[in-house]
């Protein structure tokens, strides 16, 4: 028996196939994950992501604490509600987890409040690490286990969400820029997501979540499971922790170089030194996209990518892209890899193109 989110009974009632995910009973799909995928690309879908871990960071040293804890720099957050994608690294530069951090208060005020959302499968080690890193700083870490979280994604998602909310919240949503959120009476409404589509992620008190989920369903938003969530994020070229990166690799070989804020150069963050050394020595690998534009078959995690006789890589995430109609993957390959490779698949080698992710954004193929 796993943990259940507040929406568990809704999922079962809607015919979900439930699976274990990081100790939680979560919907894999409600019939067809490919159909759910298309719904999100073409209309809208909603995902229960209440299993994710929400931690509020407060105290007079909150900002300094996060500037040290994260490889991206929260000093880049110049507006209330703004979100930053980042990662926590250990002393050797490996990725403990990736995360989103929101600035919840006006910037620059004393006693800033940040909200950090980390993965559920890494919850315990993340909380332990975050707690260990407080040391003597004036920082409070407060988990928010009583918040549900629903992601509503797709070209029609924002309009459909607005149709079931008060005029006040409609107006609040209209003001949101991409990657920004705002609070409203215990709700936190953010224009973020993990699909490559426009949409919202809404945190709200557990006791309001079921009613909101039902209203969204009545407004025509399709419930979607983890299956579609995975193929959507893969098409969008977004990493999945535990597959595309983990504690054994640095962000520099995980297509996350852009998440490392090198400037200002005097900012210390945990893992900075080994990353600088890696950069100076020359980064050996890179995380790329693979597209199998011809032939049948599906690229899968763990398959070997053959560059030439001496150089190999491996697929970190692979799958069938419903939008493109063929298989795509993320793979870690030698840095010098060109634009073609072969993948060992079920005893034979198949040709793939090496491309720069993402594969799909806003319903359209975007790589070339």
């Amino acid at each position, binding site marked *: 028996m796993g943990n259940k989110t507040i929406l568990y009974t809704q999922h079962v009632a809607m015919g979900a196939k439930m699976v274990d995910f990081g100790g939680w009973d979560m919907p*894999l*799909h409600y019939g*067809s*994950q*490919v159909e759910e995928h298309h719904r999100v690309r073409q209309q809208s879908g909603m995902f229960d992501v209440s299993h994710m871990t929400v931690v509020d960071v407060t105290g007079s040293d909150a900002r300094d604490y996060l500037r040290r804890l994260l490889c991206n720099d929260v000093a880049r957050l110049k507006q209330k509600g703004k979100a930053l994608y980042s990662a926590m690294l250990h002393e050797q530069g490996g990725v403990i987890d990736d995360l989103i951090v929101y600035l919840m208060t006006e910037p620059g005020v004393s006693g800033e409040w940040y909200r950090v959302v980390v993965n559920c499968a890494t919850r315990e080690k993340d909380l332990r690490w975050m707690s260990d890193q407080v040391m003597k700083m004036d920082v409070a870490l407060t988990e928010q286990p009583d918040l549900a979280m629903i992601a509503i994604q797709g070209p029609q998602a924002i309009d459909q969400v607005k149709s079931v909310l008060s005029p006040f919240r409609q107006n609040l949503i209209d003001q949101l820029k991409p990657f920004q959120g705002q609070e409203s009476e215990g709700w936190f409404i953010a224009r973020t997501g993990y699909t490559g589509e426009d949409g919202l992620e809404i945190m709200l008190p557990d006791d309001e979540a079921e009613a909101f989920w039902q209203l969204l369903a009545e407004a025509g938003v399709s419930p979607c499971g983890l*299956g579609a969530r995975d*193929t959507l994020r893969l098409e969008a070229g977004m990493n999945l922790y535990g597959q595309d990166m983990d504690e054994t690799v640095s962000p520099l070989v995980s297509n996350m170089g852009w998440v490392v804020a090198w400037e200002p150069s005097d900012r210390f963050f945990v893992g900075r030194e080994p990353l600088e050394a890696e950069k100076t020595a020359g980064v050996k690998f890179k995380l790329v996209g693979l597209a199998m534009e011809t032939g*049948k*078959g*599906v690229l*899968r995690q763990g398959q070997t990518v053959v560059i030439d006789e001496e150089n190999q890589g491996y697929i970190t995430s692979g*799958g*069938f892209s419903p939008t493109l109609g063929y298989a795509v993957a993320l793979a870690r390959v030698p840095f010098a890899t060109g634009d073609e490779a072969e993948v060992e698949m*079920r005893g034979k080698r198949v040709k793939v193109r090496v491309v720069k992710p993402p594969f799909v954004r806003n319903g359209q193929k975007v790589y070339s």
Partner: protein
Amino acid sequence: MSNIPNELRYVASHEWIRDEGDGTVTIGITDHAQDLLGDVVFVELPEVGDNVSSGDDMGVVESVKAASDVYAPLSGEVVAVNEDLEESPELVNSDPYGDGWFIRLRLSDVAELDDLLDADGYAEHCESES
């Protein structure tokens, strides 16, 4: 509980067999199998004219979840393959016993039919695997 039609025969590797009564059989994968696989995205089948022996792997089903071999439940010559699966592999999910059929086989030894499971036997087998 998945759908297991009484008039069909089965093998433990989750293929179904319909005896057409003229020395040929139609073969596909069961409702239980498609449910385990999830959405089917590619199906690779043998070609018309190929000879297969019972137990051979004769094709591959790729779903969103995994690649699975398809085994020939009987021996014979392939006389037809379902070409609709090329464009519409999702038929395997939506109609596994109808439009989602895989191949038709002319049997080399009709006595092999006696070795197949009936619906009850297959239901028990699924039960034992779960």
